[in-house]
């Protein structure tokens, strides 16, 4: 079954269960607002003169937005002022604020609609500005909910919103977002399901690189854009910790083995880096291993403790003590007993 057929089956199944698709209309493809609100507000026309506030007060569960006239005509309310048909015909572009909000509950307490609707759409506007959150916080003290990342049930879905304040996604956001996630992971989850995070953060289980999946997203910041294989050695040596955060040694070795680079690909055709001369193997690798052990791990971390280092560096071996300064001060016999790897070299 291809994606189109699969999608059709899925849509049919959802429809059978009573689901309907949410309109995610592109504002630029919607009709512009035609009604000049400011002229009428300035003239003192009450909101309720046009909008069906009364029905909203009746707690009709079908009423989400306060209704507007289904058609303008000489009849009321327009004919109170207009002696001929108005040119503007009210339009209601499709919108989805994804909020849990009851006009009925609020209209009992808030008498002036402008307390919340601070900016009304005018002729030509494609989008009506939703009441700012400050309108909500004028009465509801939301700092605690914000701190506890309890945006639901008021916000049903924050995906369509772009944060402007504490979590502003600008500048070096790609590098900075992890720092904000550590104390506020639940805040991230208010907008992003983990399916969004795993697209980048689970290379062990991903189908393919995100850059392969979304080459058309030229606007997004991707880490491995373009020919990353060609420059990965440069990036890895410049920032070895960046690679190790996401990729285990087995991932590196999957490609290195296919290309004959890995110690686990010893078949008589092993290709060593040009730096790996006989002198390098005999002892010249000391400084390289000390300053960037992650590069070594990309090829030499595949065989557990039973691998190339042990032959020379086991206790009493020709390679001598390989540990950095103060290492033995921090790892006593107790540590050696708790880590089987240590016992590969330290038999007692």
């Amino acid at each position, binding site marked *: 079954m291809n994606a189109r057929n699969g999608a059709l089956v899925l849509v049919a199944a959802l429809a059978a269960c009573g689901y309907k698709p949410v309109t995610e209309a592109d504002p630029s493809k919607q009709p512009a607002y035609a009604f000049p609100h400011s002229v009428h507000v300035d003239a003192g026309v009450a909101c309720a003169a046009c909008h069906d506030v009364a029905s909203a007060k009746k707690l009709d569960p079908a009423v989400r937005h306060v209704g507007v006239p289904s058609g303008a005509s000489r009849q009321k309310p327009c004919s109170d002022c207009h002696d001929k048909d108005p040119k503007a015909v009210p339009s209601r572009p499709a919108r989805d604020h994804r909020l849990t909000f009851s006009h009925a509950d609020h209209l009992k307490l808030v008498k002036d609609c402008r307390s919340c609707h601070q900016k009304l759409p005018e002729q030509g506007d494609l989008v009506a500005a939703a009441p700012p959150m400050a309108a909500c916080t004028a009465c509801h003290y939301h700092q605690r909910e914000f701190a506890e990342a309890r945006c639901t049930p008021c916000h049903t879905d924050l995906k369509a919103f772009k944060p402007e304040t504490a979590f502003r996604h600008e500048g070096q956001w790609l590098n900075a977002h992890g720092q904000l996630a550590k104390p506020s992971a639940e805040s991230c989850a208010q907008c992003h399901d983990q399916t969004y995070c795993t697209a980048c953060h689970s290379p062990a289980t991903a189908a393919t690189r995100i850059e392969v999946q979304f080459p058309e997203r030229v606007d997004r910041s991707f880490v491995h854009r373009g020919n990353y294989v060609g420059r990965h050695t440069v990036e890895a040596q410049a920032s070895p910790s960046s690679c190790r955060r996401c990729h285990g040694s087995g991932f590196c070795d999957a490609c290195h083995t296919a*290309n004959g680079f890995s110690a686990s690909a010893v078949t008589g055709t092993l290709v060593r880096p040009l730096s790996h001369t006989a002198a390098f193997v005999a002892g010249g690798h000391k400084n390289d291993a*000390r300053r960037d052990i992650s590069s070594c791990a990309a090829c030499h971390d595949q065989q557990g403790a039973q691998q190339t280092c042990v032959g020379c560096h086991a206790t009493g071996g020709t390679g001598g003590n390989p540990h950095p300064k103060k290492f033995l001060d921090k790892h006593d016999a107790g540590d050696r007993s708790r880590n089987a790897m240590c016992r590969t070299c330290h038999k007692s």
Partner: protein
Amino acid sequence: MRAHTLLAVGTLAALTPRFAAAGTIDVDSTTLLNLQQQTRGGVPEQPFELASTATAYEILSLTARDLRGGGIDDLTFVVRTWGAWDIQDRRWDAGTPSNLNAELSTAYAQGRLLDRRLTLRVGRTEIAAGTARMLQIDGGEAVLVLPAGFRLSGFVGSPVSQRFTTRTGVLSWNATGGDFATGGRVGWSLALPGGAGRGVDLGASVALVSDAGNPVRQEVGADARLKLWDPLVLTGSGAYSLWDERLAEVVGRAAFSVTRSVLVEADYRFVAPDLLLARNSILSVFSAEERQIFGGGVSWRALRGLTLAASYHLQLEPGATEGAKKYVGQEGSARAEWQRGPTLAGVEGFFLQAFENGYAGGRLFGRRELGRAFVTADVLAHFFREKVNNQDAAVTGSLSLGYELLRGLSAVVTGQAGVTPYMEQTFEAMAKLVYGATYRKSEVL
């Protein structure tokens, strides 16, 4: 069939009937065919062999939300899964020796109890809080919101490996490795009157990972977010390795919104890269070096639709020999992006100078909407300081065409070509069908 696979299939089967009861369902499906060339062989003195891979993927995400009942609020089921078939040569990152593969990237159930104060998540999930470092586990996490601003979270599970194969550190694709992980975080937050997010978050955390009883990772951490003054957000975190008794990482960042259109950032990072290796790898006992990076950046929404950004960092790396003076590397970038109506255009310049190598380069990209269609172009070039595989540059370009067939259903085709250090000429093609939609059972009141 392995136990992990059975567990995953059983979890999915148990979750499926629940989807039908949810209030909101997000669906995202991608059917993708990718054609590319990869190198193989590596025989000394001989050119690499070329493998032509043709891989078909089906990637599916389902999220069902707003299910209530049984004292549980916001019951949510999330699944992201995929299948792949290597029609021709098998790609190097297939993950198994099979041409037909499938995997679960995410699969969890989440519910909120006790007036939404307790969040429970069970399944294949990622742990982001504290020092867990986006640890992907098969297990569970609980987050409990306590009085007086305190919050307690804990997790336990098994680190995830590719295609349900071995989870041991040395063979796992998971960066952490190991077969058992646990940890948690205790946090305290103070909400202050003012703009959204004004307040303080402080936390202490621990992450413990083992592999057959041997230590893989033993870290404690601390983190903080401070927003005492609306324009300024300060964040910081640190991790300390209990096994090696030294700092693994320290990060600090200040973000200052000078105006709504100007953001200035400064950051500092200390990291000990060797502590990211599993402690049961023998390579973990050879190095104890550290690196420091500091710098900053500025982003400016200069004119209507035009955004300018730049950043610069210095990096202190270990010197060539033990005791030698540290090498001072640097990296920088600048970017201009302009978007007006259906048109997006951008240009980037960047450079990197590190001890071993470095590069300078640039990128040009653009996108144009044409009704229900769009076209994008992207050219990226790197010029290396030291030759890579005897080549001094890599240049790649891509051209994509997309068309919205139906609402929510789009088709995209992409062609890429380039000259790279490992390919004198490289070509890649991608074609995909994407379907994405949100379904609701009822209007939100």
